[in-house]
């Protein structure tokens, strides 16, 4: 393709290059580098001396600040909290160390810059640029050398050799990819199950209140309240706790039966008590904000909003599907229990999710 910009489309460089005298009659010609004017410190020795003292003073302040840093490190107790006006209560040690270090560094910098600006030469000097591209002769030379080398290798002539080399080079990085396999186990259907799968109608699992660590009875749960729960048998000091709670956490609410809009949802609950997954179906934040009046639950991460009275339907925000609901009932002693796992996977959606 040779639709390159033709030269006549490009403006000619007008004016002069470098230091030629401005073309007579061209008001826009380059007048060349302006004459260099001296600074105050260049002509007045007193001003120069003053600048020198200022620079030294800055360096001395820096020295003092470093001494202050060391003194603070030794003298100030790490637990000491002080009140400093606009900042409020801060760690005295952190404040002292940071300020002294800041001053020590800043003054070196300020001194050096001041020195450069007042006492070092400010004479601007032009230097030539050279084109990055090599000239044609050099180019031809290198290309010829390369071609000689290529011909000697026989790379172009021996096709089989070349093709098998390319093939082996293309395949060998695969070993690296394969080696990554043992980074983790395979997903299988693990994402589709939670700790509640241990519950069966014959052996139900109690819902344990997160705050009190006690099983719950329907009469403890007031209409409009929000409680968090976990499955019976899951304790904080167990090794699997973090991984389990990331999927098992429940949000228990009680809604007056006449307010319930979704029949299936109401049936999964018990007398208006509903147990939803606490894990947002967007990317998995725990949902924590509940509005009694509207029965809306809001995820603080990206504001997905679910209507808990209507089967946790998404009414706003980026979540793609409702919160899964856990079927609950009561056991013979009257405690709230689950008799099986969630109907669908908890948490963010993924490709294999049905």
């Amino acid at each position, binding site marked *: 393709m040779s*639709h390159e910009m033709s030269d006549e*489309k*490009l*403006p000619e*460089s007008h*004016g002069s290059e*470098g230091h030629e005298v401005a073309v007579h009659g061209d008001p*826009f*010609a*380059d007048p060349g*580098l*302006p004459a260099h004017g001296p600074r105050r410190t260049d002509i007045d020795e007193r001003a120069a001396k003053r600048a020198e003292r200022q620079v030294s003073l800055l360096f001395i302040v820096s020295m003092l600040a470093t001494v202050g840093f060391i003194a603070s490190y030794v003298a100030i107790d*790490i637990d000491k909290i002080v009140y400093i006006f606009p900042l409020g209560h801060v760690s005295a040690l952190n404040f*002292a*160390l*940071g*300020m002294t*270090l*800041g001053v020590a560094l800043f*003054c*070196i910098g300020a001194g050096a810059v001041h020195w*450069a600006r007042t006492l*070092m030469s400010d004479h*601007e*000097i*032009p*230097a*030539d*640029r050279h084109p990055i*591209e090599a000239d044609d002769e050099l180019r031809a030379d290198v290309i010829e050398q390369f071609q000689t080398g290529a011909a000697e290798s026989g790379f172009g002539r021996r096709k089989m050799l070349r093709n098998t080399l390319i093939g082996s080079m293309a395949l060998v990085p695969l070993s690296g990819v394969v080696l*990554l396999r043992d980074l*983790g186990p395979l*997903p299988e259907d693990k994402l589709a199950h939670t700790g509640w799968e241990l519950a069966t109608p014959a052996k139900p699992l109690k819902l344990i209140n997160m705050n009190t660590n006690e099983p719950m009875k329907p009469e403890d749960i007031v209409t409009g309240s929000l409680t968090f729960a976990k499955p019976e048998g899951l304790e904080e*000091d167990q*090794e699997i706790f*973090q*991984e389990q*709670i*990331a*999927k098992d*956490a429940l949000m228990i609410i009680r809604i007056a039966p006449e307010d319930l809009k979704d029949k299936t949802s109401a049936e999964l609950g018990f007398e208006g008590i509903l147990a939803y997954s*606490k894990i947002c179906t967007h*990317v*998995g*934040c*725990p949902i924590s904000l509940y509005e009694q009046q509207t029965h809306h639950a809001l995820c*603080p*991460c*990206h504001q997905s909003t679910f209507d808990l009275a209507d089967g946790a339907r998404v009414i*706003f*925000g*980026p979540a*793609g*599907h409702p919160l899964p609901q856990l079927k609950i009932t009561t056991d013979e002693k009257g405690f709230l229990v689950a008799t099986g796992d969630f109907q669908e996977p908890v948490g*963010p*959606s*993924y*490709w*294999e999710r*049905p």
Partner: protein
Amino acid sequence: MSTANNATSGASKPASTRAKPANKFEAAADWTDGRLGIYTLAKSNLRKIFPDHWSFMLGEICLYTFIIIILTGVYLTLFFKPSMAETVYHGTYAPLNGIRMSEAYASTMDISFEVRGGLLIRQIHHWAAIVFVAAMLVHMMRVFFTGAFRKPREINWLFGAGLLFLGMFDGFMGYSLPDDLLSGTGIRFMEGAILAVPLVGTYLQFFLYGGQFPGTDIVPRFFTIHVLLIPGIMLGLLVAHLILVFYHKHTQFAGPGRTEKNVVGMPLMPVYMAKAGGFFFLVFGVIAAASAIATVNPIWAYGPYRPDQVSTDAQPDWYMGFSEGLIRVMPGWEIRAWGHTLNMGVFVPLMVFPLVLMAIWVYPFLEAWVTGDKREHHIADRPRNAPVRTGFGAAWISLYVLLLLGGGNDLLATHLHLSINTITYFVRVGFFVVPVLTFFITKRWCLGLQRRDKDKVLHGRESGIIKRLPHGEFVEIHEQLPQDKLYKLTAHEQPQPIELPAEVDENGVALKAGRLAKARAKLSGAFYGEGAQIAKPTAEEHHEITSGHGHH
């Protein structure tokens, strides 16, 4: 007789044919030169010319904050335990006493409360990282708006943008290491995002996390990537970036005596060394003081991570805010078919995020292709003289800022008493509208400035002196600009657009003008055509006007 290369000979017997050094310093330099050849290296570099412009300090800030991050980072690794093993906290921070947490979190607490100066270094590390990314972004904008990315500097543009992406990514990783409630939320976010990838998402997630979320592998793995892998690559890129800057030399703005073929400025030694070296200390000093005053990421206030808890003001560092904005404003579309789920609500933002970055990354090549300009450029454009490019840059920034606002919609809502839903709807529409509007406004603005320049050149500048003419009219005297100003305002070039390739050749045979060639001619017209630049004043115009009365 061997006179050269006899290193064992004493001072009385010359070691080489070189004359005796005048003092200790020269002797040391000679010794080093004999081994490393430093004289040849220093010859053209000691007094190498650096042009001066305030905006060059932006790149310097990037370099210096990077150095600060590495220095403080090494310190932090001496105390940090990258482990998710559970432990119970018994430290000086009373509110968390007896709480279960990971060793990563506990050791970060120790750094903050038990190690003297540890909190300060942690704060400097974090503040420097924030400034680092900000400086890279602004530095990149400076290069963009002045066209300094053009040939021969395109490759350095790629290196620089690569540094920005890696810096953002490494910042996110570092932020995730302490395993506090906020960073855990970020890691959870990442899990959801990876799961949204079709086909391989679940596999990627299980391999990265070593199993189900959260697992116990993610912090040690992130640690290695954060302190070793990414910084290593960045260091390499940075060195390459600087070598190229040195090799190409800086760009400079047009001005008297400054041409495409020279570079005007001050020598490396001593002025530039003193200024640049001094500036490092200024930056370090300011960041140290800021770290003493303003707390960033107070992990003790968030508490250790628990997957069933969350803090309400969950916010990433600002540079990730734009991805956060994308994820917040995307509607929750989910496609379910044949037993599979495609999570568009997460996957689309996940794809748009790199695309927005890529757009800026490939821009130099796009512009070069459209304009067909194959020359080297060393004179920086004034942004107004490249209205289309400036418009693009502004549009890009407006999108960035808009998404940043979208990412902080909860903070905006609580601070300004707005409805979150309204902000979200606004950002959704704005995503498509705001960049376009910004583009056109910026372009017009640039043209306006060009017109004003033209005016100044032809009619001079307003002197503030009012003159009364004999017949009673008042006029303001316009003063001719001095020649250096005239030169500055007219030095830029104004290329003409590429013409559409002819449809028939000279023999009347229809030529197939490729679709691509047509598109290119169109784009080139948009870039340099009538609507995109104001014709520069010519010498004749100037002559005609100035030969008159000198006013008006």
